[in-house]
C-alpha cells in the first residue's frame, strides 16, 4: 500500500508514476535514509519528505529512464535525511559560513571544464567533500534552482548561491590539479 500523500495527486498519470516509483524503490529510499539517520522513525520522515519533493519534480522524472529515476529518488531521500539530521543535531556549521565568494577567473574555469572529460569530472566529484558534492548534486542532478535549494536547506537564496558557486570552484580546482598532473 502507498503513503497517503500520493492520494493527493490529482492527475491520474502523475499519481500512477509516483505509485510505481514508490513501489519499486521504497526499500532503497528507506535504506538510504536509515544509513544517514540510523533511526527508523526519522528515516520514515525522510522518505515522506522525499516523496513530497519528488512530487514537485514529476515532469522531470517523467522524462528519465528507470535507472536515473531510481537514482533521483535515492539521492533525494539522502538529501532529505541529511537535512533532518542537521535539524535534529542543530548542526549550524554550514549556517555560519561566510557569504564571501572565492575570487574566480571564469576564463580559466571555462577552459578547465572544456578540457575535462565526463570521466575526469566524475573522479573529481568523488574527491569533493560530502557537502560540496551534495549541493552540486542538487544543482546538476536534481536540477534545482537556488530558490529551491535554499528552501530545502532552510537557508537564504544568496547563501545557496554562494555555497553552490564555492562547491563548483572546488570541483574546478580538483580538475586543474588533475590537469597539472598533481
Amino acid at each position, binding site marked *: 500500500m502507498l503513503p497517503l500523500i500520493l492520494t493527493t495527486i490529482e492527475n491520474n498519470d502523475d499519481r500512477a508514476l509516483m505509485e510505481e516509483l514508490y513501489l519499486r524503490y521504497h526499500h532503497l529510499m528507506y535504506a538510504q535514509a536509515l544509513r544517514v539517520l540510523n533511526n527508523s522513525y526519522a528515516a520514515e520522515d525522510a522518505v515522506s519528505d522525499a516523496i513530497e519533493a519528488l512530487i514537485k519534480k514529476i515532469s522531470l522524472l517523467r522524462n528519465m529512464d528507470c535507472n536515473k529515476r531510481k537514482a533521483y529518488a535515492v539521492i533525494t531521500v539522502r538529501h532529505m535525511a541529511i537535512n533532518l539530521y542537521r535539524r535534529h543535531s542543530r548542526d549550524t556549521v554550514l549556517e555560519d559560513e561566510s557569504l564571501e565568494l572565492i575570487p574566480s577567473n571564469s576564463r580559466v574555469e571555462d577552459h578547465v*571544464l572544456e578540457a575535462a572529460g565526463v570521466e575526469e569530472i566524475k573522479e573529481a*566529484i568523488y574527491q569533493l567533500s560530502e557537502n560540496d558534492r551534495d549541493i552540486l548534486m542538487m544543482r546538476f542532478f536534481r536540477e534545482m534552482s537556488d530558490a529551491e535549494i535554499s528552501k530545502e536547506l532552510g537557508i537564504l537564496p544568496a547563501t545557496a548561491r554562494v555555497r553552490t558557486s564555492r562547491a563548483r570552484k572546488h570541483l574546478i580546482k580538483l580538475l586543474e590539479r588533475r590537469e597539472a598532473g598533481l
Partner: protein
Amino acid sequence: MKQEDKLKEAFSSVAMEQTEQLEKTLTYEERRKSEALYKHHHDTALRLIRKQKVSIVKWVSGIAAVAAAVLLIVWGVNRPAPDIITPATAPVSTVVSAYTNEPLQTETATPAVQTVEPTPHIPELKAHLVSFPEGMRYAVYTGPGERYERANHNKAVVSTNDWIEVFGVENGFAMIQYAITSTQRRVGYIDAAALPTHASVTALEFSYLPAVITHETDLTDDPFGEKTPLHILPASTEAKWLATLDDWVYLEWYGGDQPVRGFVPAAAVRLKSAE
C-alpha cells in the same frame, strides 16, 4: 558538449553509481525494516478505506431512512379511508366453549426454533522471520508436498540469502513467504528439513471447509505483492477454505492436473455451509 551538460552527465553518473552501490550492499535488516514501513502504510490505508466505507454506508442508509419516512407520511396523508376494516388475521387457532361461547384456550403460533450452527473455526495465518543459513536454495511448491503444483512454471526456488518468513509446518513441509523482487513475493512450501535447528516453528492447522467461488477471481501466491495469478478460478469453483490472512482467504484447489494452494480475495469466496 556544453559545460553544463557535461556536469549534469557526470553528476547523473555518480548518482547512479552510488545508488547501485547502495542496492548491492542492502542488508537483511534494512530490507526487513523497509518491509515493516511498507506494511505500516498498507495497514493505515486499509483502516482509512474501511472507515470511509462505513461512513458511506451510514450516510446512504440515513438518506434511505429519511426518504422512506417522507414517502410513508405522504402516502398516509393521501390514501383514501378504507370502507371495511378487516381485522388482521393472526396465526392462532381458537377453541370456543359450547356453553359460554367464550374462548377456552388460545394457541399462539410459536416461532420456529432457530438452529444456530456453531461458527466454523477458521485459523488466521501468522508468519515470523527465520534466519536460514545463507547460500542454500530450495524448491518451492504451492502446497505441503511434491505432488502440489510448483509455481513459476515448475521452477520456483527460494534462496536463503534473503529474508524468509515461516508460517508453520505441515506434512514435513514448511509454509514460507519470501521476496522475489522488491515488488513480488511468494507464499509456498519448502522441505521442513531446510529449517534451521534453532527455529521454533508451530504446526499448521487448517480448517479444510468446503468453499465456493462467488465470482471469477485470480488464485495467487503473492497476495501482498503483485498478485500474480497462478490460476483463474471461475464462479462456482469449489475449493477447500484453509485459513484467512487479512482480507485474503487461503484455499486449496484440485481443479488442475495437480492440487494447488493460493489466495483469493475474501469478497470472491464463501463457505458452502453459509448457503
